[in-house]
């Protein structure tokens, strides 16, 4: 079974999930009894808007038909029209996507850069002071609200300590983006670090006690080589899985962090749209988020298969 075969198989498995996702997104507007259009619009329920939604969503037709039309629209790339800006929701999302992607990418890199050395330190100095400190990280760290961490970082690094980083906004140019994104990315990264550290430390400990590490030591190899070439190489595999599973959290974290740092990404778009009761946009962003997460799951699976030669022989 080759890599393409594996990917194809995974994609096939994703089809029912993709359907499920669209169903869930579709049903969002039908959650509350009564006229969905009126509920969605709330105080903005002018007769024009209500009629507009009825037309857009075919609300007078039976549910399965509505769902089918919804699906067909999405397949065409039409994610609905924004009520407030009268532009396709899809275009709005696309415009706001870059900052969010930046955030996710930078946060992942930072998370790995922070977690791996910490976990390695804890695993190699097991039960000594460093280990206890590192073990406290997941315990305490999981209780920190991400947005609050962002605000604290803003306070310390943005407002005090020499105002090293801007307190908000996206900046311009590559370096400008990096500069503006650093604190937000760090916030998101810190949100996922506790889980990563805990899992990587556990895998490393398990691996360090394994027989093949003993074999490596019996060859008289330097401890560093044993750690990196043998232990880490294996521990990383399970961590990639953990990272993949928790990516939902990472991506979700961007939503709140964008609010804290006023980043013009799709998270902020979603929040704004909620307050403006611009439902099509909310729906579009929700869908896009789900697609991103699913793609990342797929990517993690592929990376896992690449790293672990045992996988393809399922």
């Amino acid at each position, binding site marked *: 079974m080759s890599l393409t075969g594996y990917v194809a198989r995974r994609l096939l498995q994703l089809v029912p999930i993709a359907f499920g996702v669209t169903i869930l997104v579709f049903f969002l507007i039908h959650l509350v009894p009564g006229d969905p259009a009126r509920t969605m619009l709330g105080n903005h329920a002018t007769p024009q808007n209500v009629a507009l939604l009825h037309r857009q969503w075919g609300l007078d037709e039976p549910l399965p038909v509505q769902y089918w039309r919804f699906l067909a629209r999405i397949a065409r790339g039409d994610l609905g029209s924004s009520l407030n800006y009268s532009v396709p929701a899809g275009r709005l999302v696309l415009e706001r996507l870059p900052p969010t992607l930046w955030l996710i990418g930078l946060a992942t890199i930072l998370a790995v850069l922070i977690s791996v050395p910490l976990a390695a330190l804890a695993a190699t100095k097991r039960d000594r002071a460093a280990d206890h400190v590192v073990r406290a990280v997941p315990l305490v760290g999981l209780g920190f609200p991400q947005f609050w961490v962002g605000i604290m970082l803003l306070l310390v690094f943005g407002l005090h300590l020499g105002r090293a980083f801007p307190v908000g906004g996206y900046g311009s140019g590559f370096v400008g983006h990096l500069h503006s994104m650093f604190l937000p990315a760090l916030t998101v990264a810190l949100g996922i670090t506790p889980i990563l550290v805990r899992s990587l430390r556990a895998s490393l400990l398990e691996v360090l006690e394994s027989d093949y590490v003993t074999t490596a030591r019996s060859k008289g190899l330097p401890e560093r080589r044993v750690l990196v070439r043998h232990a880490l190489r294996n521990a990383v595999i399970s961590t990639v899985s953990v990272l993949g599973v928790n990516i939902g959290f990472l991506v979700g974290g961007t939503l709140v962090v964008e609010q804290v740092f006023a980043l013009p990404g799709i998270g902020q778009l979603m929040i704004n749209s909620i307050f403006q009761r611009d439902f099509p946009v909310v729906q579009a962003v*929700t869908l896009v988020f789900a697609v991103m997460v699913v793609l990342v799951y797929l990517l993690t699976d592929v990376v896992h298969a690449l790293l672990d030669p045992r996988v393809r022989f399922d």
Partner: protein
Amino acid sequence: MGAAAETFAEAVVIEHRRGFRRRWYRTPSFVAGVSILGSIVLLAVLAPVASWHDPIQQDLSQILQSPSWDHPLGTDELGRDVWARLLFGARTDLRVAFLAVLFPFVIGTTIGLLAGYFGGWMDTVANWFVSVVVAFPFYVLIIALVFALGSGTRNIYIAITIVGWVSYMRIVRGEVLVAKRRDYVLAARAGGLSDTRIIGRHLLPNVITQAIVFAMSDIVLDILAIVTLGYLGLGVQPPTPDWGKMIADGQTYLTTQWELSTIPGIAVVITALGLSLLADGLADLLRPE
């Protein structure tokens, strides 16, 4: 045959409980967790007595005051006493978080039990539901649901339930898959006990411990969710005090009265720490010897 199987299974359950009674005070994480959480819950319950200002009472002549004897943590931008808001906020957030755990727990455990035990199409369908929910980032789905349902505490419960049952289902299903191959279950089935009896009296007590332990950390997640929703303006509606909203309101004054945003956050961290320690301790205690 049936009686023997029942006795065996009961013995396994009793093992768990006996271990618990004997060791709880010798498990440091459990004791620490209970102490921390206990103090906070106590403060929350005694909020009307432990504070002497009305948390929603505004006093525009006293805005943004520094800590003083009358206002131990100062006042916020509308002149409200921060200490009182902190305590009453604890009431709100803790109560909602504890309640919000119940439905996902019950629903997730039930589905997990059925899917794990019976397998087949029930399992496939349940797993499909799980995969779909999990495809959405946690907060995105919660926020979308809160938006669709409308704001207010009742809808927060519903939203958290729709998203939260998944973890319990997975945990319980996993435990059931392992447990149903164990001797006591095989003996029970060979002894002709009905499925309901096996699930209810034999599987359930043994698999539920993991779910309970998780529930503790789930409360932490729920507190964070509620507080985050509050920060975004989508949570508990004002004027009811809520830690998240307090942090949001304080963000505007970060340059001068930074403690307005900092203090409620610290409260969350300490509460979460207590719960996490409790969860760890509970996990240690409920682990079979």
